[in-house]
């Protein structure tokens, strides 16, 4: 299923990773896409700007953050939840 939010996230990640949006699969990890730590922080900023949400992500301890960045699927799911929370 590809909804509007998912499409917009893939577009952001694709731009950051300099890839085609079709290459941003749910199984892909940030490392798979060539996204390093700095690029990840930039991507999170871009997603926050796009959806006007605040993402609970601490770059010091990414694995302990509430925001699960294991792969694109977990990221997309987490952004869906944050967008829904914002919409109330």
């Amino acid at each position, binding site marked *: 299923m590809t909804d509007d939010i998912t499409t917009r996230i893939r577009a952001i990640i694709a731009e950051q990773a300099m890839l085609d949006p079709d290459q941003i699969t749910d199984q892909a990890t940030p490392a798979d896409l060539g996204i390093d730590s700095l690029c990840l*922080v*930039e991507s*999170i*900023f871009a997603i*926050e700007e796009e959806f006007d949400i605040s993402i609970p992500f601490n770059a010091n301890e990414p694995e302990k953050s509430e925001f699960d960045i294991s792969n694109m699927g977990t990221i997309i799911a987490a952004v869906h939840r944050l967008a829904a929370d914002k919409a109330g």
Partner: protein
Amino acid sequence: MSKPLDEALIDAGRAAPAIQGGRDLAGRGGLRRVVITGAGTINALGHDVASTMQAFRDGRCGITQLEFRDVDRLSIQIGAQVHDWTPETYFNRQQILLYDKFTQFTLLAAKQAVEQAGLHFQGALGLRSGVVLGTAGGGLNTWDENYRAVYEEGKNRVHPFVVPKLMNNAAASHVSMEFGLRGPAFTVATACASSNHAMGLAFQMVRSGAADVMLSGGSEAMLCFGGVKAWEGLRVMSPDGCRPFDARRNGMVMGEGAAVFVLEAPLVPIAEQDNRITNTPMPAAPRSWPRSWGSPCRLMRRTSSCRPPRGPSARSLAR
């Protein structure tokens, strides 16, 4: 009465014996000659050394009406601003996001200087080379834009690269990364004397043998609303022109730009350099630069025939 500095340096250079058998031999007191082999600049008069020198010869003034957001709210509206600056000509989108204007200026000037010197820093030379730059304000435009975003526009989020862009050593760090200079890389801040002190330090590092090649000079990009407003507060700015040593002088005029030089130790006699393997043309301009620094001479590309991988060897790091 001691000799003037430039004469003393030339004397030190004369005393330094030429290289023998591929090793550079320190001169009197272990001090080496230092020569300038490359220069680069961008400023209000031109985007390189040649156009800047031509503007000097033409007696052209670089001071113009300032052009940037909210300039109408300033009482000082003139400056030596760089015009026709299109960073996308030199940098990709990702680089532009990461480089404040003072870093962009620096990287362009450094590129010109390194090209003129004809140096490549792969391998051993990179480990013996560094960069010391001066700046007083650093990433003023980045401060300005982001203060505006959070205070004036009420935004609660700024781009993650704000800190890497605004910090005063950003330009030196990016020069180090761009050209593979793995020796000392830092920035000196002493107000208007910053670049002068940076070049003094770089000179001493080459002269003492702490480094073989140093890039040095400096950069400033304060011409933005907050930058000029701050200077207005000092009440030292001229509203109409720059007239140093003139009875009608009424203040200073702010400019922006960068200048970078390549300082080297002359390791190989000039005669041997004619045989070096290189496609790089000899420098056309810098004959006027090195006089006070020693006689012009050039560093042989010690790495030209052998280029090890980029990463330093464990042994070289342990030394």
